[in-house]
């Protein structure tokens, strides 16, 4: 049985070997989580974008110091918190800016009760709603084995091997089912995103 290699560690190694573009894959993977984390401190979406961007830049600059004694995301998370706190502190020096009630409980908990920033436009809310609906409908329409596979992977966080045991099928079948589920959802999302003017990167 082949040992599974964590993508993150491999990508970091490649960046440390001078492959800048491998860092982009880490950005793509974690940007939403980092943005959301930073938003809890900074509140303003535009500022949160800047802080998120700065977080990744600082992480890139410091990548040579990452030794792999923790998960890459744990390390990135700390950089994000530090960067966000600094941004808030800088903001406080400006008396015209109202202080945000940043919640730092040391944990990245999902709290959907947080109210949306007032800067969120109705249009962007509609886009999010449409995307949520598209994903939900795509999941509804999936054949059961595909939906099960992607659920066990993305929501339960199970490895391919554990999913294979749970679904009583070969690992190759798990890999195929997860891919086909993703692609079925992705196909619908591409239509939505392209329509909204999505860009290639």
């Amino acid at each position, binding site marked *: 049985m082949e*040992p599974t290699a964590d993508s993150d560690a491999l990508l970091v190694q490649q960046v440390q070997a001078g492959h800048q573009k491998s860092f982009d894959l880490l950005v793509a993977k974690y940007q939403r989580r980092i943005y959301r984390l930073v938003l809890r401190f900074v509140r303003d979406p535009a500022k949160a974008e800047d802080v998120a961007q700065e977080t990744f830049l600082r992480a890139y600059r410091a990548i040579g110091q*990452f030794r792999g004694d923790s998960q890459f995301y744990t390390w990135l998370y700390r950089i994000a918190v530090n960067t966000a706190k600094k941004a808030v502190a800088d903001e406080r020096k400006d008396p015209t800016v109202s202080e945000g009630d940043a919640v730092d409980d040391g944990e990245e908990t999902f709290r959907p009760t947080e109210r949306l920033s007032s800067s969120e436009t109705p249009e962007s809310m509609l886009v999010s709603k449409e995307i949520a609906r598209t994903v939900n409908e795509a999941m509804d329409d999936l054949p059961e084995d595909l939906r099960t596979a992607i659920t066990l992977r993305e*929501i339960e966080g199970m490895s391919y091997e554990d999913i294979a045991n749970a679904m009583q099928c070969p690992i190759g079948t798990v890999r*195929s089912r997860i891919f086909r589920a993703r*692609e079925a959802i992705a196909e619908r999302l591409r239509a939505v995103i392209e329509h909204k003017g999505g860009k290639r990167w």
Partner: protein
Amino acid sequence: MSTSVTREQVSAALDGEWAEPQGVAAARLRAIAGDEQARADWLLYAQIGDLLRSADLQLRSADAAFVARVSAAIEQEPVVIAPAAARQIDAGREALAQVAAAHRRPHWSTRIAAGMAAVAGVAVMAWVALPTLRDGVPATAPAQMAMVGNAGGPSGAAPVLKPVVAQQSGNPAGVGPAALPQSQQVALVQADLQVPAAVQPGAQPATLTPRGAVASSDLPMAEFLLAHQQMAGGMMPVVPAVLRQPLAQAPASRP
């Protein structure tokens, strides 16, 4: 000779699951990083994962632009070469693999995974209730919505939970999106934020009210996990909540 990466390979790479020998992984990731189509697929698959995991991690249409900005900014930076650090990563990676598996997902998923592995051939379905925004009302937590859904359906942003239970007697009303083996009693919880038009044929709409102080905003999937735990524990059809509308009866009224 085409060296482009297939979408299936991108999918597996994102999961860190390699069917090939160790050395292929690094080359595969570099190939993905350098291929425009592969990068777009990697981003979209990562976004789908985030969407499924949390009601609040909304896909933003500007995601691709963000990556492009960071990428461009990095190109202006000196290239980092840190081989010593890379060697240290290698040395610690095996031990880390175990830790990584436990930490990559919320802690409760590892317990569920252990339970799931003990159950053979059971189909489990659950996915995130993505909150709707109606009349400017902010989205509320799926866990909380499970409680307010008791009020007979959405009054605001609450989605309705529809349990689909396959009875051993082969009650056809219990079959959800697909037929389940009749020999198994499985409780499936499906979260649906849409209007009744999206109801699966045959599925009886109902609402689930979690019993006890189970749901917390920290665990939006709490009600689903309880359902899983029930299944992992003994294949019992009981859902850990008051089923407001048993499947055998008339459909609950939904606005």
